[in-house]
């Protein structure tokens, strides 16, 4: 198991946003995380990426406890993410945003740059080329020089995915990557997610677009009121009475 959550809880005051949640993501898997609004999906991503600490329970990445680490340490272990409400660096250009994403894979120290050593220059060139390649992959190469704040909503989402991929993560957390996108953009993001998984990155996908989730995910976990109500393959999830009740309500 790449990521394993065991009895994870997080309470805000009296509200248990995440309540004794356990599930696991396998290496190379596209794992869907769905549930009605307020089910605790984003809280769960914040717990995994270290922005929040669980009140109890454990989160393991490749058998290593990560639930007490700082966000930058968790990122260094190979977890990268996007945000539901897009958190690009607004005044930086699209290319620069992706360059920041490469922070963990860039190795040349500052002193080499201070003395204009060729190693530093070559490393900068390589970083820039990688960033441009990633922008190309999300169809944003022509907009590489545009500041993030001037990009459209869909464009910002795509740059954010490129930035998250720039650290070459083992586990990619996507928080509603297709929100606000049109049908054509959704199709291209779906293709990108499949491609990324094929290259060996595991993906944990939080998404409201149920068709997309059913389409790309191999495994789906359904949350409601902070609890896991179903966990399994897409076909099984679609017929699960608890899931249908959570989304459509009970008959009685």
């Amino acid at each position, binding site marked *: 198991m790449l990521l394993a959550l065991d009895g994870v809880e997080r309470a805000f005051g009296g509200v248990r946003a995440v309540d004794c949640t356990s599930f696991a993501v396998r290496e190379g898997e596209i794992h869907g995380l769905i549930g009605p609004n307020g089910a605790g999906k984003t809280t769960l991503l914040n717990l995994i*990426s*270290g*922005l929040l600490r669980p009140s109890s329970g454990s989160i393991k990445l490749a058998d290593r406890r990560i639930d007490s680490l*700082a*966000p*930058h340490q*968790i*990122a*260094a272990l190979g977890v*990268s*993410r996007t*945000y539901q409400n897009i*958190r*690009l*660096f*607004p*005044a*930086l250009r699209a290319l*620069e945003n992706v*360059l*920041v*994403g*490469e*922070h*963990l894979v*860039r190795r*040349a120290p*500052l002193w080499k*740059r*201070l003395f204009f050593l060729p190693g530093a220059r070559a490393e*900068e060139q390589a*970083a820039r080329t990688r960033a441009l390649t990633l922008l190309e992959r999300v169809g944003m190469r022509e907009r590489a020089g545009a500041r993030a704040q001037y990009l459209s909503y869909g464009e910002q989402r795509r740059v954010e995915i490129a*930035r998250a991929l720039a*650290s070459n993560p083992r586990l990619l957390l996507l928080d509603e990557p297709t929100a606000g996108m049109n049908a054509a953009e959704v199709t291209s993001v779906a293709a990108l997610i499949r491609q990324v998984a094929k290259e060996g990155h595991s993906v944990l996908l939080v998404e409201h677009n149920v068709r997309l989730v059913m389409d790309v995910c191999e495994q789906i976990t359904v949350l409601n009121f902070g609890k896991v109500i179903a966990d399994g393959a897409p076909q099984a999830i679609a017929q699960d009475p608890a899931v249908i009740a959570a989304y459509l309500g009970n008959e009685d």
Partner: protein
Amino acid sequence: MSTLGDLFLTYQSVISFVGIDALLALSVYATLCCGQLSLANAGFMAIGAYAAALLTLHTKLPFAAVLLASALAPAVFAVPLGLPVLRLRGIFLAIATIGFGEVVRLALVNWDYTNGALGLVAIPQRAQLWTIYLVLVIALFLFSRLRGSKIGYALESIREDETAARTMGINTTLAKLSMFVFGAALAGVAGGLEAHFTFMVAPSGYGFSRVVDMLVYAVVGGVATYLGPPVGAAFMTLLPEVLRGLGESVGLAPGPLRLFVSGAILLAVVLFLPNGIISLPLLFAAVRMRRERG
């Protein structure tokens, strides 16, 4: 001697002060560039100035070593101060760091060893115009190499969105602390230079208004690049000299006129030139392009 040489001799001290003020503006920019409004720099400057003055008065150390000490002394204070206060954001960080500045100033007022409020006098003049500008050039070089580096981008990302920066693997605490310490060292070395240029140090020179001056230099010059703060420092330091003549010709005392004009310029820059006077050439270029297109 040529007239240019005469002009230079007449204004040598003003040009030196421009260099010192440029260093101070850069010291504020060091934390501003990663989004932290720290106002501890008058305190750091005082520590650097006093450390340098004491070393010169009581030891035979060469000036380079004294300057190095004036950078290191405040840096040593900045680490334990920065660790707790950099957890604060925005205005709360500003208030906490103002507090530090006042603590330093009051400690110096009450310290008998350094003559309390009178301060230390008769410090030999060891700082020359060229020493000041050598230090400034080194500081500018460091900032220029930082820009566009991996760490430079990390700093910009912290300014833009600290939470997102953390999940990109950036140790934001370490980055912010490093720049806080770097800013302290710059303020300290500026203090050391000033002490050896004006022959004296006194607590009253490092009060709240001093750090406000530094911030004004940076904001007026523009904080989008490291070149802005020195330009702002030059502008705001040379301005009184220009105004002196102007004020005399209309029969005004230079003091009040200077304060009035400085305030008006700050207001105008904040309202109409959010990227400072360094953005003026770009702005003119944009206007010209629009006009040419018709």
